[in-house]
């Protein structure tokens, strides 16, 4: 029985793997079936994970369970539960989540706009600061480096390589930013700088393409190894 189960396991995974691969040829029933299983399984997977990890793990363990016990103790006159590790602020999240669910009732569905407005506001506030600090200021500071010396204050000691490198970074950042100007026509000297900026952007894209491409192959090798090795035993 166990052996039969093991056979089934290997074939199931192989069946699904080949089903997805078959899409490369064209859309077909095998792919459609694998796709439907994939959508159902993965939607269910995340449903379960979010339920146990976020709702149960965060809210229930952190606040909900305590509140229930506390309420029970109030009504029965028993001992109130220990408040260790309890964060009643989590209730706010639960209430917002509940308002979200009110969408299911069309009449009061508009209440769900509150949590949405809250999320969008908080996101805007948080990221406004984070991006100014980490994207703008940190990057500007990183670009402001001495052009002619290796260590700060060392005077004119750098080799040609470092000087060229420093210049390239400065010019690239500068012209790249010029490209992003929206309210000024890209003509004349300004336009030329913006065009240089585009060149730098293109080199960036090329380099990151070349860089990522290589690592993508390893996944394919892993899958083929499963098919030919684990499943069919053709290779070691």
């Amino acid at each position, binding site marked *: 029985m166990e052996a039969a189960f093991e*056979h089934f396991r*290997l*074939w199931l995974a*192989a069946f699904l793997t*080949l089903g997805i691969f078959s899409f*490369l*040829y064209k859309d*077909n029933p*095998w792919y459609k079936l694998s796709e439907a299983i994939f959508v159902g399984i993965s939607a269910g997977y995340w449903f379960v994970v979010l339920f146990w990890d976020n709702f149960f793990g965060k809210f229930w363990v952190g606040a909900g369970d305590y509140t229930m016990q506390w309420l029970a103790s109030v009504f029965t006159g028993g001992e109130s539960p220990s408040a260790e590790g309890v964060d009643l602020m989590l209730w706010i999240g639960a209430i917002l989540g509940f308002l979200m669910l009110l969408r299911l009732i069309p009449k009061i569905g508009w209440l769900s706009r509150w949590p949405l407005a809250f999320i969008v506001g908080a996101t805007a506030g948080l990221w406004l600061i984070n991006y100014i600090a980490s994207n703008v200021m940190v990057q500007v500071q990183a670009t402001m480096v001495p052009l002619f010396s290796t260590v700060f204050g060392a005077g004119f000691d750098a080799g040609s390589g470092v000087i060229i490198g420093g210049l390239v970074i400065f010019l690239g950042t500068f012209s790249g930013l010029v490209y992003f100007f929206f309210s000024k026509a890209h003509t004349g000297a300004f336009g030329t700088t913006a065009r240089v900026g585009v060149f730098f952007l293109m080199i960036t894209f090329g380099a990151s393409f070349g*860089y*990522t*491409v*290589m*690592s993508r*192959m*390893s*996944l*394919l*090798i*892993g899958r*083929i*190894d499963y098919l*030919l*090795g684990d*499943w*069919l*035993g*053709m*290779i*070691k």
Partner: protein
Amino acid sequence: MTTKAKELIAVAAILIFSLIFYLGKTFGWEPTEFSTAVSLLVVILLLASLLWILVLTLQGKLIGRRVVFLYVGIAVAMPLFMKLSQEMPVSPAVQGVYDAVTELEPGSKVLIACDYDPPTAPELQPMAETFIRICFQRDLKIIIMGIWPQGPQQANLALEKILAEPDIAAKNLQYGIDYVNLGFQAGNEFVIQRMGGSFKSMFRTDYGGIPYDELPLVRNVKNFSNIDYCFNLSSGFPGTVEWVQIAVDRYDVELGAGNTAVQAPTVYPYLSSGQLTGLLGGMSGAAEFERAADARVKGTKYMLSQSVSHIVVIAFVLIGNVAFIMSGRKSALKG
């Protein structure tokens, strides 16, 4: 014959082919391995077909997507059958890990932190296997843990495989005495930080639920000061960067790391600063590590496929452009 019929026949052929080999495997067929001559022939055939694609493209006949797909599939699969004679130097970064492990006294305790998941297993699993093998061969004690949920699971797969190897199996290693798997602990980098105080506070029980104090190997391990070497397998956050910042910088742990090719460059600076004793980067790192340990298995095998796939991509870029320039950049090619 209609297309539909042809397709059905193709599917049937694949099924029958699979069935034959699957039954073959079940009844104990040996894995296929190409001899040097056959390998050479396959390589020549692959190159010849690339040339043929070049010629076709030059004539203005752009090959279809499906041909490209088929070609990539074959080019990646074939090297897996080949016996290897690819010589590659072992880079200092990889040698660093190997030297650090081999210099440990027998009986030393090694912590393996597995912070990766199945999608990156092709790159990191060979590293884990080789590392575990070296440890067992040199009678080092292994403590496994993970701050990625699936890391310890992957480590178990590796353990299972290495323990089944004849020379390791002969040592008759005991769980709890020679190796333990403490399992996963949620909390990202804070887990590392708390482990600096006490391992037990983070891992009350091991993977299987045995209480920490009932495991002879770790009973006397209080924190990082009782660990002789630490090896981190990482494919993202939290990973090697956090291990360096906390375990190395704050608790003075000696750390080596294995990373995916994508992540490795972000970790390189730690290597030159000495915060890492060594680094295995991507499949090539795994292959070099196997070479250093003189056990060429998965990583080495994968590496050939990896090289071939790189060449294929570069070749496709070149072919596309040669054809494009030859055609006088006039006709916009559509594919």
